[in-house]
């Protein structure tokens, strides 16, 4: 391991940290989350994730490139529940409640983006 390697690793660690922090800081904070659903780059739906009945899960269906996409949402969160794609890459992403974790389903040319983010600290992703 040469010096250059160590410098590279340290700078990348710093860089990812900087990205993480600056993305968080640059977003407007609001509790009124809205999920925008896109198919083939067109906005096809906009779902209000606030003001819903607590503990009530709603479902919606969309048609993607490979078939039907089942979306579930509740107060403050949304996810793709089931869809047709290799490795189920869309539903494996789980629930998202902020704009830093869009649900991107390339095989179906489908993605869900949230506008605004809640004023909470939460982990971005857990790996390993």
């Amino acid at each position, binding site marked *: 391991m040469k010096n250059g*390697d160590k410098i590279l*690793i340290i700078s990348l660690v710093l860089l*990812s940290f900087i990205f993480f922090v600056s993305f968080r800081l640059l977003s407007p904070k609001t509790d009124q989350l809205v999920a925008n659903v896109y198919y083939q780059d067109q906005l096809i739906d906009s779902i209000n994730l606030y003001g819903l009945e607590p503990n009530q899960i709603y479902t919606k269906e969309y048609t993607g490139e490979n078939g039907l996409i089942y979306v579930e949402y509740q107060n403050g969160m949304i996810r793709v529940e089931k869809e047709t794609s290799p490795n189920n890459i869309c539903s494996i992403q789980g629930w998202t409640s902020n704009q830093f974790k869009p649900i991107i389903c*390339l095989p179906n040319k489908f993605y869900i983006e949230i506008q605004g983010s809640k004023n909470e600290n939460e982990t971005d992703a857990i*790996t390993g």
Partner: protein
Amino acid sequence: MVQLSLLLSISIVVSIAESFIPVFVPGVKLGLANVVTLYILYSYGRKEAFLVLIIRLLLVSILRGTILSYPFYLSVSGGLLSFVMMAIIFKSKNLSIIGVSILGSLFHGIGQILMAILLLETSTIVYYLPIITALSIPSGILTAIFARKVVSRV
């Protein structure tokens, strides 16, 4: 030439085999086929590595049935950008194969993010940048460890 075609087939098999390993973050993969690319880069040179890479990308996507669709463009953009950076930097005295591999892994991710932004016409995908940057370190180190063992034995 025979060796290169053998290496090509190894990289194709590795590439397809690792696609069965599930990942928790979309767009992230172990990049084990890069071990072959690194090996060819260090043992043969830029041209050979580029050739094998391009043919591998084409053949893998034909075999998987993804040619000329989103996954194909993503893997090509990631692979090419990663290769360009590695080819430029691999002769540097300050970086060992580990650094080159990490850089390759990083730019593979960046190339894919840029292409995904282009394809979906949204900049939301840039939010994946932090995790992709962070994950490029371990995946780069992993491929470098394998590649180093092979390069040293030849």
